[in-house]
Structures are given as structure tokens and as C-alpha cells.
């Protein structure tokens, strides 16, 4: 079944960006146009969960030939399954909020700013829906450019350093992935050639096809799996970021403008975790199993390290950035527990983190807009001056530290249970208990910072004349807070839809049979 819906959702923001490039209205019209386009994208994307059938795999598919010369086998193949469905929604949900939250804070080159954000949205959605490696890589890389510009042009003081660091880290990872893609493509093609004789369709970049073959035919030898696991894995682990690849993140988060931080934390980091689940687990299951203890350990180190470093940050934004390192550690831990609960929890935690960290960046951005400082010591006693702000900030804080009934709890709880019961991780119980201390630490740093900013006497007279949230700012925060509640109370609506995809990943992990012989020997013909 062909469906153009995903294509439209993906390209609508880009079309909007081109529209903004061509017409030259005044600033307000520019903002409204961008907002309406992103809202329209969100509205369209709402059709995805409504039409999505939980029991099936890839849906809303479109699969047409793209480049066929030289048997290159590049296809325009897009679709969503349980892994990507909610991430697409998260993207379309966060972008309008990011636009609203930075409504007045961008004064310089507004038009180019809006174009960058809209182009970025296309790139992000594209990464999640691409089911062809060529297409995936295209979106993955192209998305870098607007993000780079967002940090570099509209960022803070050390923006150039942060932007360049961000790009170099990401590019190094993604070029290794390119080598991995070429290798995977060649190995797969050569294997199919040997199996069926040289046929036209043997060489393909199609992710669904290669994944199915990896599961059914096990065409990758163990050593090939090991190499490819890291070729893909490093790209994703940098993006997540997993300790010790995380050092680009605090710089990028702190220097980016508010909308950039929201999108960076909310969506970009998820791409790494998504990539791990989409590629590393089902394609290289044996290598994944072999390296799971290592990666899980790094994840736990990241959880604790991120939390400890966050605790001592004097800068609010930096604190949120390091808390991301900690939270994303949970996600990676859940993924590499290889249990259904752990992986479901990881997926859910990805959404939670998008909502609550996105909200935290919005919250920080709001007081930065007023005071042009983010130092915790500059604030104190905001509860009396900005009551609405303080209330919303409190809910966001509690969501971030995983209070039951709020979204964060569901994800982290699932991850911890999944890890605890994991059969594939040695010392699973110890890892779990260390990870659980991360939860406690997160409560410590978040509540402490909340106390220092919001409670107590107003120590700084400059804070006395701060105004509470305007209608626009409430509008930017309210949906996030509402989502935190909804996702905390009614998680099954989300989890049911992703269950099938997670089980597919698990069965790929379980059934895979590594090609023991060297890949050069002729494999026996399978009766298919």
C-alpha cells in the first residue's frame, strides 16, 4: 500500500523553508508562517498514531525505485513502525513549541533562523522514517547543517567552538558509519550473488530487506559483525551521547539558542538511541550481545557521572545538559538489557526525555530572556515573584526526576526492571543498583537547583521586577506539562504501539545465527 502521508509530513517543513526564502514579508508574518507550517505538520502527523495498527510492522510505507543504474539499488523507501512512530510525533510536537518559546528572543536574521529550524525538522523526521540506508544517511548528514548554523549564528558566546566541536564529533562518527554502510551493502550484495547467482536486486540499500536477511540468512560473519557494530555504533553512541563520547554535548547545549537546545536535547539525541535499535541490535546481534556488558557498564558510568557533574554546575543550562548525559545513560542501558521491558522502557524514556528536558530548556530560556544570565547564584526566591512559572517549573522538575504519575517514572522503572531481569548482562543486578543511585542523584541535583532558584528570600534585587509568564510562554510550556502528565498516567497507549517493533528486534536478536565460516566461503543453499 502506497501512502504519501509520510512524504508530505517530511517535506512540508522544507517547503515552508523554501517559501520563507522566496517571499519577504515582515517579521511577524515570518514567525506566524513558520509556526503555522510546523503546526500543520504536527496536525498531519497526528494521523500516524490514529491510523497505526499495533499488530503490524512497517506502516504508511512508500517504496519506489530511486537510483537503479549500476544495480546500485537505492530506493525511496519510507515508513514508520513502533520504533519510529512516537519519535516522529515527538519531533513534530516539539518544533512548534520551540518556535513559540523563542518567539521574541531572536532579533538577528529572523528569517534565516526560521528557515534553519524548518529545514532541521525535515531532516529529523527523515532520519526516523527512512528505510533505505542511502536515504537515512542523507537525512542524517544534511540535518547537521541547519543545526550547525543554529548553534554557530544564534548561539551564545562560545558558539563557534561549540558548533565546530559538534560537527567534527558527529561527522567523524557518521563517516565511519558511511564506511560501515558501504561494507554492509557490499557484503550483503556479494552474499546474495553467491546464493542466488547474479540477479538485479541483490545489491540493495533497503534496511528492511537487509535486516530480514540478517535474521533469516545470517549473512554476516562474527568478525564482520564486530567491525560493523562499531562502525555504526560509534556514530550512534556519539550522538546519544554515551560516556565517554559526551564531551560535545555540554558545549553544544549551552551555546545553542533555546529552540536549538530544545530540539537538540529533545530529538537529536534520540537519533543515536534510535539508530542502535534500528541497526545495531537486529543487524549485528551476536556482536551486540558480545559488547552489551561493555556498553551497559559505560551507560551506568554515564548515569552516575552525568548526575555528579550536573550537581556541581553553577550554570542552569549546563546542569540540564549534564542531566541529559545521565538520562540517556538509562536509555542505552535499557536497550542493551535485551529484555522487552528494558527496550520498551528505553523507547519510552526517549520520549520522556524529549518532553521533560525540552521543557527544562524552555524554563531556563524564559529566565534567561529576562535576566540574560543562567547562573544559579543570580536567582533565588522566584516563587514569590513568578508563581505560575515556579509551579510549572516544579512539575517539569518532578517529571525529570521520575516522580510516579509523571512520565519519567514509567520509563526509568521499566528500564530498571528490564535490566534487573536481563539474562544477557552479567552482573545485571549490580548494574541495576548502580543505575538506581542515578535516580537518587537526579533527585538531589534537580530538587537542589529548584530550591536555590525558586525558594528562599529574593537575594538579588534585580529579580524583584521580573514579570511572570506571558500568555505566549504559558502556551509554550503547557503542552509539555500536559504531556508529562498524560504519559505518566496512561503509558499503555504509547507502549502498545511500540510493542510489536520491540518484539521484532528481540526475535532478531534471539534467532540470529552467525555465519561461523569466513565470509569468503560459499554458504549452503537454503531452501526458501
Amino acid at each position, binding site marked *: 500500500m502506497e501512502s504519501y502521508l509520510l512524504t508530505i509530513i517530511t517535506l512540508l517543513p522544507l517547503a515552508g523553508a523554501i517559501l520563507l526564502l522566496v517571499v519577504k514579508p515582515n517579521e511577524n508574518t515570518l514567525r506566524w508562517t513558520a509556526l503555522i507550517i510546523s503546526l500543520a505538520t504536527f496536525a498531519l502527523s497526528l494521523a500516524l498514531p490514529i491510523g497505526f495498527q499495533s499488530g503490524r510492522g512497517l506502516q504508511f510505507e512508500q517504496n519506489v525505485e530511486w537510483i537503479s*543504474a*549500476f544495480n546500485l539499488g537505492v530506493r525511496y523507501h519510507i515508513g514508520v513502525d513502533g520504533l519510529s512512530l512516537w519519535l516522529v510525533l515527538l519531533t513534530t510536537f516539539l518544533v512548534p513549541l520551540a518556535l513559540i518559546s523563542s518567539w521574541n528572543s531572536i532579533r538577528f536574521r529572523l528569517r534565516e533562523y526560521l528557515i534553519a529550524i524548518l529545514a532541521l525538522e525535515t531532516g529529523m523526521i527523515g532520519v526516523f522514517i527512512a528505510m533505505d540506508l542511502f536515504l537515512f544517511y542523507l537525512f542524517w548528514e*544534511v540535518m547537521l547543517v541547519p543545526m550547525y548554523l543554529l548553534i554557530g549564528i544564534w548561539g551564545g558566546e562560545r558558539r563557534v567552538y561549540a558548533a565546530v566541536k559538534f560537527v*567534527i564529533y558527529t561527522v567523524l562518527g557518521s563517516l565511519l558509519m558511511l564506511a560501515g554502510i*558501504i*561494507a554492509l551493502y557490499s557484503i550483503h550484495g556479494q552474499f546474495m550473488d553467491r546464493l542466488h547467482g547474479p540477479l538485479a536486486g541483490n545489491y540493495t540499500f533497503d534496511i528492511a530487506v537487509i535486516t530480514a536477511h540478517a535474521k533469516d540468512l545470517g549473512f554476516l560473519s562474527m568478525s564482520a559483525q564486530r567491525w560493523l557494530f562499531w562502525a555504526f555504533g560509534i556514530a550512534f553512541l556519539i550522538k546519544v551521547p554515551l560516556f565517554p563520547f559526551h564531551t560535545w554535548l555540554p558545549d553544544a547545549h549551552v551555546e545553542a539558542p533555546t529552540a536549538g537546545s530544545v530540539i537538540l536535547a529533545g530529538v537529536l539525541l534520540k537519533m543515536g538511541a534510535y539508530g542502535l535499535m534500528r541497526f545495531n541490535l537486529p543487524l549485528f546481534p551476536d556482536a551486540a550481545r558480545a559488547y552489551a556488558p561493555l556498553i551497559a557498564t559505560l551507560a551506568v558510568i554515564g548515569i552516575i557521572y552525568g548526575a555528579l557533574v550536573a550537581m556541581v554546575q553553577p550554570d542552569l543550562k549546563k546542569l540540564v545538559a549534564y542531566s541529559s548525559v545521565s538520562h540517556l545513560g538509562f536509555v542505552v542501558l535499557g536497550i542493551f538489557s535485551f529484555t522487552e521491558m528494558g527496550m520498551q522502557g528505553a523507547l519510552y524514556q526517549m520520549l520522556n526525555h524529549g518532553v521533560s528536558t525540552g521543557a527544562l530548556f524552555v524554563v531556563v530560556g524564559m529566565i534567561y530572556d529576562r535576566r540574560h544570565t543562567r547562573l544559579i547564584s543570580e536567582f533565588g526566591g522566584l516563587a514569590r515573584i513568578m508563581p505560575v512559572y515556579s509551579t510549572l517549573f516544579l512539575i517539569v522538575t518532578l517529571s525529570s526526576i521520575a516522580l510516579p504519575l509523571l512520565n519519567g517514572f514509567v520509563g526509568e522503572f521499566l528500564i530498571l526492571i528490564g535490566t534487573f531481569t536481563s539474562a544477557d548482562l552479567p552482573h545485571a543486578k549490580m548494574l541495576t543498583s548502580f543505575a538506581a543511585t542515578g535516580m537518587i542523584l537526579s533527585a538531589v541535583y534537580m530538587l537542589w537547583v529548584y530550591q536555590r532558584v525558586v525558594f528562599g528570600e529574593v537575594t538579588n534585587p534585580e529579580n524583584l521586577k521580573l514579570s511572570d509568564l506571558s500568555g505566549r510562554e504559558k502556551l509554550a510550556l503547557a503542552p509539555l506539562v500536559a504531556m508529562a502528565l498524560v504519559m505518566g498516567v496512561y503509558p499503555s497507549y504509547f507502549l502498545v504501539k511500540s510493542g510489536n517493533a520491540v518484539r521484532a528486534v528481540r526475535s532478531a536478536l534471539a534467532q540470529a545465527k552467525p555465519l561461523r565460516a569466513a565470509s569468503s566461503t560459499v554458504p549452503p543453499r537454503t531452501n526458501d
Partner: protein
Amino acid sequence: MDTSSLGISYHAILPELITATAAIAIMVGDAVARKISRRTAGLLALAGCAGAAVAVFSLWGETGPAFYGGMIINDPLRLSFAIVFLAVSTLTVLISIRWIEDEGLPAGEYFALLMFATTGMLLMASANDLVMIFLGLEITSISTYVLCGYRRQDIRSNESAVKYFILGSFSTAFLLYGIALIYGACYISGAHPAATTNLQLIRERIADGALFSPRMLMAGAAMMIVGFGFKVATAPFHIWSPDVYQGAPTPVTAFLSTGSKAAAFASFSRVFILTFAAASVMGSPELRELQSAWTGVLAVMAILTMTIGNLVAIVQTNIKRMLAYSSIAHAGYALMGIVARDWQAVAFYMIGYAVINIGAFAVIEAIARRGDIRTSLSDYSGIGFRSLGLASVLSLFLLSLAGIPATAGFVGKLLVFKSAWGAGFHMLVVIAVINSAVSWYYYLRVIVLMFFSEPAAEFNPPSLTKSLGVALVIMAIATFYLGLLPGRALALLENAKNQATMIVAK
């Protein structure tokens, strides 16, 4: 030998005839009409390119036997590369019209030389004989020596021309020596004793094992690698290129770094892939050893070339010099295609590279102004928003050079990397990938300067002339077209590949 067996066919050399005629017309017109206007000269050159392109397409599908006693061949390699050369020349003419007016230089000789150089490049691709390759190479080289020194009042331009001339002649000597050795190696005794420079015969003799001395052939091949290595500017024969590229007038640099390189790659493919490699497949163990020897040497050269090019580009402070090193690095990537024996990938790489590199030089030329004053990297700080159009397209071309997907640069890279991986050169691909990551740094630095830095003292955005604007729009569209919809271009090359295997099989 009667004349019919000589295979005289004017159709077969129509593209070369047209560009040569255009060159002569410009020259004579210039002499007779006492300085024809720059615009007329440019238009004549454009007409020559367009006519030659039509001729190339009319030859498509008529591939087959050799002409002129085996001197000229009309095969897919020739036609594919001819398109590359004509695209390069057309774009160079388009970006030159404004430049030559700004500089106040005589246009007649300039465009005539450009057309002669194009003729030489076309001959290099259509040559089926080592002597013919040499001839084409010399026509190209001598024209470009003069073009490098075309701003004769400028001492850097003079330096560029002299350096290029001396080192170029030196490398030509190597090539000639190689040709002589191969000529001797292919001597056969018997009823009709003869040596040969004809590539068809050389291939047959290698395949039959009827060589006078395989070792001599190996020495000859080594000399030819040196000779072509100079022209392509591969390490360690790249030393001349930064000085020459920096000093030469910017449009000439654009032409040199794309056109001459592509021409040398065409001959490289002709001799090493279509002759040596094609023959060695069926040859003796000794010949296969020869084959693996030159493949190994070229693989090492490719690694050296891209690594040196990229590393040295990082520390440059002059944008032309930086792009000179970048073009060394790109020669390294393209060389991977030769190593993998996939000339189609090289051809696609070169056409993509030509578009984006000439594009980058076109913007640099517009910003540099008369006399190449503003070519330092610091001149680019903060110009991004003052001249948004130019800065944006320059960013596009630079990103494409870095190999960002959706643009021509990426597809070219993907093709050569894929071929190299498929041919078993895994380490080469990994090194190339790491090199690409390095190259991002210096390409991005220009974007950082343009958009993220404070403006430098004074900068008046250059006004765009019609020809330059048209050229930039064409190149920007072509960058995306080749990057997103490369299917058509690749299908042309694929046809070419099938035909090439047919011809070799004959």
C-alpha cells in the same frame, strides 16, 4: 595500406574539429577585426563547446572500430570524459567573461587558448595510441602554461607559469620515456617484426604473452605513472600544484584543477584499466604480478595523496591555496576509482567535482576582485550576511566538496568508495573516510568565517554579472541534480560500461 583501412572519418573527430575551429575562429577574428569584443570571443567559445557537445551526442551509440590507423577510438570512455571536458570548458568560459573584463585583459587569445586546451583534452580521451595521448597532453599543457601566466603584469602569475612549465615539461619527459619503453617492450619478431604504440595491439600482445620483455613493460608503466601522476597532482608528484594554482588567474585555476585533472584521469583509465588491466586478466602469472604491482603502487599513492592534501589544507591561510590542497585530496579519492578499475566511477566523480570546484572558484573570483587582492581567508570573515547569495552558494559548494549527501560530491565519493570496497581495498576505504572527516574541518572553517565571525574592515558586496549569475545557478542546480537524481547520468555511464565490456570482449 589503402586509405579506407586507415579509417578516415571526420565524424569520428567532429568534437575536436569543432573546438579547434572555434579556437582558430577566435584567433583570426581577433586579428582581423582588431580586437573583437570580449563578449563575442566568449560567445564563440561557448558556441564551440555547445557544438562539440552536440557532436559528442551524435557519436553516442556509434562506438566501435578505431579510426585513423588506430590513432583515434570512439568508445564509451572517450564520450563520457568528453562530456566532462566540455562541461568544464563551458563553465570556465562563463566565469571568465566577467573576470577578463574586470582585469582589462585581451580576450581573444584567452578564449582561443582555452579552446585549444579543450581540444587537447578531447584528444587525450579519444586517443587509442600512446603517441596520440602524448600529443593531446602537449596541446593541453602548452595552452595551460600560457594561461597560467596570462596576467602578465602580476609576478605571482608569472611564477605560476614558469613553475608549471618547468615541472610540466619534466613530467612530460617521464611520460615520453615510459612510452618509449612500452614501445620497445611490445616488439615482436617474426615475419613482420614491429614494435607498437597502438593500445589495441599492446593489449593483444600482452594478452597473448607475445611481449619482448614484460620487465620493460613494467618499467614503462612505472614511468607513465610518474608522468600522469604529475598531471593529476598525486603525491609525491603534487609539489607544483599549490604554487601554480595560487598564482594562476582564478578561472584558469578552476580549469586546471578540474579539466586537466580529468583529462589525465581519462588517459590513466585508457592505459591502465582498458589496456593493462583488461589484458592482464588473461595473461601469464608474470603479467598478473605486474598488474598487482601497479595497483598496489596506485593504492599507496592514493592514500598519500588524500592524506597530504587534507592535512596541509588545514593550515592554509589563502583560500586558493587551500582549495589547491583540497584538489590534491580529491585526486586521491578519484585515484581510488582507478585502483578499483572502475573508470565510470572516476568519470562520475570528475564531473561532480568539476561542477562544485569550478563553482567554488567562481565565487572566490567574484570576491577576490581585480588582481586577486582578496584571497586571504581573513577576507572572508563576516561577509556571509553582507553578500548572502554568494556566501550561500559558496557554502553549498564547500559542503559538497566535503561530501555531504544530497549533493554531487557525495554520490561521487560513494561510487568510488563502493568500487574500492568491492575490489577488496577495505583499508583504503577506511583511510579515505577518515580523510573525509578531516576535510570537513577546513571546508567548514570558511563557513565559520563567513557566517559566525565579525565582519572585517570594509567589504563591498560584488555585483553579479549575468554570465557569472547564470553559471552559478547552473552549477548549484547541477550540484543538487547530480546528488539527488544521479540516475540519468549513471544510466549513461552504465550503457557505456556494457558497451565497453562488449568491445573488450571482441
